[in-house]
């Protein structure tokens, strides 16, 4: 009986798996290690700290501290939204409270594990800017 070659399957398998790559860098946010970011236009420096031991699925509380890079005015937080683009998830906090140079972001729900993008729109000195935090939810 003629020997049947598996070469076509091997080739297709190699072509398919060649596209699989490791994900990029991101961070699991824990209380002991806040995230620091500079806004897209460099107007604001920010520190994001999670309340509790660390970020998890379900609702999370954060403290966001904003500092103007050069303006003498205090930055303000206009909007907060979290998205997981690959799964079409979008989440907003229940409440955003302002307190002495920082903002408390309350009950921001992460519906599943994976990489979430937390986007904060800020304003300082009449100019708008954005901060993006990549949060790896365990």
């Amino acid at each position, binding site marked *: 009986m003629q020997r049947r070659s598996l070469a076509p399957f091997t080739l297709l398998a190699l072509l398919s798996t060649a596209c699989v790559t490791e994900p990029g860098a991101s961070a699991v946010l824990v209380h002991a290690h806040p995230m620091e970011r500079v806004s897209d236009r460099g107007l604001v420096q920010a520190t994001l700290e999670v309340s509790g031991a660390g970020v998890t699925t379900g609702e999370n509380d954060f403290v966001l501290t904003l500092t103007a890079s050069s303006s003498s005015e205090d930055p303000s937080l206009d909007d907060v939204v979290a998205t997981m683009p690959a799964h079409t998830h979008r989440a907003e906090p229940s409440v955003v409270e302002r307190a002495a140079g920082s903002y408390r972001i309350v009950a921001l729900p992460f519906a599943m*594990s994976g990489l979430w993008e937390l986007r904060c729109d800020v304003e300082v000195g009449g100019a708008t800017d954005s901060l993006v935090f990549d949060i790896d939810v365990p």
Partner: protein
Amino acid sequence: MKERPWAATVAAVLALAPRPSQACSCGVPGLDSALTRRSETWGVRLGERADVTSGGFNAHGTYRPLGAHERDTTFDLTALAAIRAVERLELSSEVGYGRSSAVMGGRALTSSGLDDVVLRGRLEALDEAPAWLEHGSPVDLALTMGVLVPMAPFDPERPRGLGAWEVGAGVVASRSLSARTRLALSSEAALRLPDRSLGEQRALGPRVSTQLTLSHLVLPTWIASAFSSLRWDGDSAIGGHSRPGSGMRVWQVGVGTTFNPNASAWRTSVAVRHAPQLSGISVNALATSTLELTLTYAR
């Protein structure tokens, strides 16, 4: 005309193959399945699928089981209709309706509604030559095309659909390993059009899916199969900025069986799929186990 009872039964098993981990039920049905035999001109199939999530994989591929008070389940009813206008070309369309519910971190989330609609075409391009022939194609080869129409309503907490148009093309190759055993490899690549489902410009990365299926003819009317699938979604871009690490990768394994009486227009299948709870392979995905039952009528 050459009768190919294997073609329809293996295709029926392939039809049970890899859907993405039903993260938020935003999955794309497999685009590689044929519903009808070449001797048939039309067919319909009803399917019931239950997904139960046991945990999730983060961006680094680390698995975390759901908490004691967390759960995530989805039930979908699907309907697939196909016509074979010419012997080698099948055109089909699939619609679905489902309900999902979850409790995550004390929040109860539910959603229900239509799923995305999938339009498919499948051209059976080459036939495997008999083993005793020196020349001829070494495999059965089918070319597939598919379009996903984002019909599912948008729910930001429990999204049911992809939220974007998707256009894909693929190839399904299969061949006999023995008189009763076949091996099939299906692979598909798809592009997604930009959309604004999340309120700003989003560009989902491309998708590549592949599945290896081993099928054995246990009885003339009964086939048992085992398969392994891998799906990869590239990084997405939001607001024109690519987000490294936002892509998804899901590995699933499964078994299935198809009962296919030769003289009957009825076929029935059952399949179980499972995303192994192993860290390091799947990323940005749910670990889901799926049970799917289908009933097909084709003439």
